[in-house]
């Protein structure tokens, strides 16, 4: 069982630069055909100051943490038994290439189902930009599967 004392635990904040090239690469990988996400002139014509960060790329930036395994290790979770169960985003303002985004992660809840066969970790992450403006809140549910099938 994951120690419930970690409910409410906050991780050290970290900052990530949004790289323009990475945004273009992400657009290619997701089959994005809208030039707003790859062509700076098109982005500006649509009213953006630079290439916009697409909705789910904030999750990728969160994975740029100095130690992406920090929460897993803190909670003692075997990565081979982990599943990404749910992911959510609440958006407050846009983020753009060149921004430096700050990520503050908190272990919001730990609970179990099926008599403890499945454990769930809810992580919430507040994202703000270099001006201290609130960009988004991320919610991730990680599932830890106990038992022989894992």
């Amino acid at each position, binding site marked *: 069982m994951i120690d419930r004392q970690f409910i409410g635990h906050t991780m050290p904040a970290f900052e990530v630069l949004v790289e323009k090239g990475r945004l273009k690469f992400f657009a290619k990988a997701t089959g994005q055909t809208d030039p707003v996400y790859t062509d700076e002139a098109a982005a500006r014509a649509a009213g953006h100051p630079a290439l916009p960060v697409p909705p789910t790329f904030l999750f990728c930036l969160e994975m*740029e943490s100095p130690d992406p395994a920090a929460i897993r290790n803190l909670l003692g979770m075997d990565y081979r038994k982990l599943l990404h169960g749910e992911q959510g*985003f609440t958006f407050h303002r846009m983020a753009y290439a060149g921004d430096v985004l700050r990520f503050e992660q908190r272990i919001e809840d730990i609970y179990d189902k099926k008599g403890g066969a499945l454990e769930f970790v809810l992580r919430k992450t507040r994202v703000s930009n270099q001006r201290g403006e609130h960009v988004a809140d991320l919610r991730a549910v990680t599932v830890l599967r106990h038992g022989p099938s894992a």
Partner: protein
Amino acid sequence: MTLPSFDALQVGDAIPALELPPVSRLTLALYCGASGDHNPIHVDTDFARIAGLPDVIAHGMLSMGWLARLLTNWVPQTAIRDYSVRFAAMTQVHEKITCTGQVTEKFEVDGERRVRLSLTTTNAEGQVKLTGDAVVALA
């Protein structure tokens, strides 16, 4: 891009679907690099077989990225207030995925008119892979 009309939309209306080409190994390799998720289960068949799978599986967040494209094909990204998914089933390499969305609610928050959409990705046989929910602000 002009916003769809709040008044003209009805609960039950579908937004234009997004059909993806079959999931290729190249797509998974590109997403591996672009996303920074280097879990070998998505790109290394040997690893996937040792893990008990018939072949590599797509990243759940790649499907969530496709569903985000469904939304931004319909409205500018600035209109998206909230977006969440549940990963219901694994998407296998070669599967052909379709993203769909349907209006489930019309409401107003602080004078802003919004619609809630239910979202799904399904394979060619109609098996649901992701279910989700988005809230979009409309004029």
